[in-house]
C-alpha cells in the first residue's frame, strides 16, 4: 500500500504549469450557474430590465457626438457619427467590463472563497461569458441603428464587407485579452491594493489610447521620434481588434492588415497563459493575504 492512488494531494507549492483543466471542466455546471446568477441578479427588481444595457451606450454616443464630433470636430472616416461611436463603444464596453470584473475577482469574492474550494478561475470565466449577453444586447442595438440608417439614408458611407465575418474571432480575442490582463491584475492586488487604485485610472486612459472616439487614419501622417504614430497605436493589442471590427461593419478607414491582427492574437495568447499561470499560483494562498 506504499504508493496507492490518492485522489488529491495538497502541498505548499505547485509546479509552475499545473492548471487543472480537468477539474475546471468538472465544475462547468457551477460556471453556467454563475453566469445565470450574474445575469438574473443584474436586473432583478428593475422595471426596464435589460433595456438599461442600451441606455448607457446611447447616452455615451450622444456625449461623444457633442464633445468629439461637435466641439472638437474630429472626423469619423466619413461614416455617420452615431454608427462610428456606437461600434467603438460596444466593443470597448465589453472589454473594459470584463477587465474590471476579472481584476476584482479575489477582492470581491473573498467571502465565498474563504469558505469553500472550487477552481477560482470559474469566477472570471463566468464573468466573461455573462458579459457576452450584455454585449449581445448592445450589439443588437448597434445593428438596429445600422439598419435604420440604411433605410433612412442609403447613401451613407457605411459599407458592410467580408471582414465582418471575423466578428466572433474578434470578440474571443477581446475576451482573452480582458481575461489575461484581468487575472494578472487580480493576482497582484490581493496583497497590495495600490494597483487597484491605479488600475481604474489606467482603464480610462487606455480607452483614449485606442481608436474609439477617433479613427486610426487620423494618426496616419503623425510621427513621434521618427516612428509613425499609427504603428505605435497598433502596438496596443486592442487597436487592431477595434479597427478590424469597424472596418468590417462600417468600411471605416483601411484594414490594419493581417500582420497586426496576428500580433494581437499572439499577444492575447501569451497574456492569457501568463495570467492563468499567475492566477493559479496565487489562488492557493490568497486567503491569507487578501
Amino acid at each position, binding site marked *: *500500500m506504499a504508493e496507492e492512488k490518492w485522489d488529491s494531494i495538497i502541498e505548499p507549492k505547485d509546479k509552475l504549469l499545473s492548471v487543472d483543466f480537468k477539474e475546471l471542466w468538472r*465544475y462547468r455546471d457551477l460556471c453556467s450557474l454563475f453566469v445565470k446568477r450574474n445575469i438574473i441578479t443584474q436586473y432583478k427588481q428593475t422595471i426596464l430590465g435589460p433595456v438599461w444595457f442600451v441606455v448607457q451606450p446611447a447616452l455615451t454616443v450622444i456625449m461623444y457626438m457633442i464633445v468629439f464630433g461637435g466641439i472638437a470636430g474630429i472626423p469619423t472616416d466619413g461614416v455617420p457619427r452615431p454608427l462610428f461611436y456606437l461600434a467603438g463603444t460596444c466593443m470597448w464596453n465589453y472589454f473594459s467590463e470584463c477587465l474590471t470584473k476579472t481584476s476584482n475577482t479575489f477582492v470581491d469574492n473573498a467571502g465565498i472563497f474563504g469558505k469553500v*474550494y472550487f477552481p477560482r478561475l470559474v469566477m472570471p470565466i463566468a464573468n466573461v461569458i455573462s458579459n457576452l449577453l450584455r454585449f449581445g444586447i448592445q450589439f443588437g442595438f448597434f445593428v438596429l441603428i445600422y439598419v435604420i440608417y440604411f433605410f433612412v439614408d442609403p447613401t451613407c458611407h457605411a459599407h458592410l464587407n467580408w471582414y465582418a465575418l471575423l466578428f466572433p474571432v474578434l470578440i474571443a480575442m477581446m475576451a482573452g485579452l480582458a481575461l489575461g490582463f484581468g487575472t494578472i491584475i487580480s493576482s497582484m492586488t490581493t496583497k497590495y491594493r495600490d494597483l487597484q487604485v491605479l488600475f481604474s485610472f489606467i482603464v480610462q486612459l487606455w480607452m483614449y489610447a485606442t481608436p474609439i472616439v477617433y479613427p486610426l487614419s487620423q494618426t496616419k501622417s503623425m510621427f513621434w521620434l521618427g516612428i509613425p504614430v499609427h504603428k505605435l497605436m497598433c502596438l496596443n493589442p486592442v487597436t487592431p481588434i477595434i479597427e478590424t471590427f469597424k472596418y468590417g461593419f462600417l468600411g471605416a478607414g483601411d484594414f490594419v492588415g493581417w500582420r497586426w491582427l496576428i500580433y494581437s492574437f499572439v499577444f492575447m495568447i501569451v497574456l492569457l497563459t501568463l495570467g492563468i499561470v499567475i492566477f493559479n499560483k496565487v489562488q*492557493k494562498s490568497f486567503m491569507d493575504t487578501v
Partner: protein
Amino acid sequence: MSTAIEFNHVGKQYRLGLVSTRTLSHDLHRWWQMNILKKEDPYLRIGETNDRTKAGTSEYVWALKDIDFKVEQGDVIGIIGRNGAGKSTLLKLLSKVTGPTVGSIRARGRIGALLEVGTGFHPEMTGRENIYMNGAIMGMSKAEISKKLDEIIDFSGCERYIDTPVKRYSSGMTVRLGFAVAAHLDPEILVVDEVLAVGDAEFQKKAIGKMQDVSKGEGRTVLFVSHNMASIQNLCKTGILLETGQIKKTGLVGDVVNAYISNNLQEIGDVSHLTEFRRIGVTTKEIEFLELTRNIPFKSDSNKDIVFTAKVKRNVITVKTFQFTTLIDNVALGGTRVGMAYSQEITWPEGKNIAEFEIRIPEHHLARGKYILDVWVGQGDITSSYKYFDSVYDSLTFEIDTINGTPISEWHSYWGEGIWASKVQSL
C-alpha cells in the same frame, strides 16, 4: 481498511500585523534569498507557537505546526481545542481554502467541506435557484442536484417558499435551506465545522440525526470540529486534541475530551496574580489588574452570588472613572463565552493609587459546569466606544454545582451571550 486522509508534518504559518511596506521588504528579501541565492525561505525558520494570550516577539506565528496523523476510511474524528488552537485552520487546509506552508495532505475520495451553511446564497435568487447554486459551489453537478431536489426541499421544510427570493426568508429558514443542501452532499470525506449550532431545537435534532446517519450508516469518513463536547462524544469514535497549533493528544474520544477538560482547569487557586500575565492589545498604561481573588469556593452552589475581588492599580492620576467587564467562558463548551457583565461607572477612590473592588454577580443563572473568568477594565460605552485599559483572560476558574442535583438553568453556546448585572463595591 485503507487510509482516507494522511497529514504529513503539515504546518501553516501566518504573518501577524498589518500588510504594510514591511511586508513588501520581507517579500523582496524572501524572493532574493530563495530565487537568487537559492537558499531556503528565511522566514520559515522563525515563528512561534500560536498562544494568543502571550505577547510574542516574532511577527510570524505557526497556526499549525507539525500536524501528523492518519484517518482510516469510515472513521469519524472529532477535533477539539480552545478558540485559536488551530481547528478551523486545519479544516481550511483540508478543504483547500488555503494552502499549507510546509508538509502535505493526501486524501482519497471527494472532500466535501461544510465550513458554513448557505455559502454563495444570493438574496435576489429564489430558494430553488439557490439550492442549485449552493450545491454546485460545493461540487455537485446539476444532474445530481436535480435528482435530490425534492429530498432537499423536503428536508429543509421550506417548500412553500421555494420559489420566493431568499431575501424574504427568515434567518432560520436560510440556515435550514443551507443545511439541507449540505446534508445531501455525498462526498467520501466530509469536513464539518460546528454548523450544528444553528436553527431551532427541532431542526437541530434533525440535523444531528442526519449527521449520525451519515457517519454511522454509510461508511463515510467524517472530520468534525465542535466546541460542544456532548455532540463530539456522541458522534465520534476518536478524537484529536489541538493546543496552540500542535497535536496534544489523540485517541478514543472519551480520553481526549477528558484530557481537554482537565487541561483547561489546571489553575484552581483562589488567588490569581496577574502581574506576570502577558497582555494582548492593551497597554496597561492607565489602569492595570494586579490580583484577582475568588471569594467563593471553587465549587459553588448554583444559587449563590459569584463574588471576587479585583486588586487594581492606577498609573495615571487623571483617570477618575472606569468600568469593569466580567466575562465567563464555559470550559466544557471549549471556552465558549456564555455571558458578560458590565459594571456601572465607578469613581476611583480619592487619594489612593492601588484599590480593591468587589465584583458581585447576583442571580447568575449559570448552568452546572466549569467556568473560566476573564476581566476587562475600561472606560466608555461598551457597545460602541469602549476604551480598554487592561484585559486578562483565563484568570480564575470555578465550578457551578447544585446541592439537590437539579441545575436551575441550562445555557447553550448557541443561545448567544447572556448579560447580567454586576455590583461593584469598593473595599
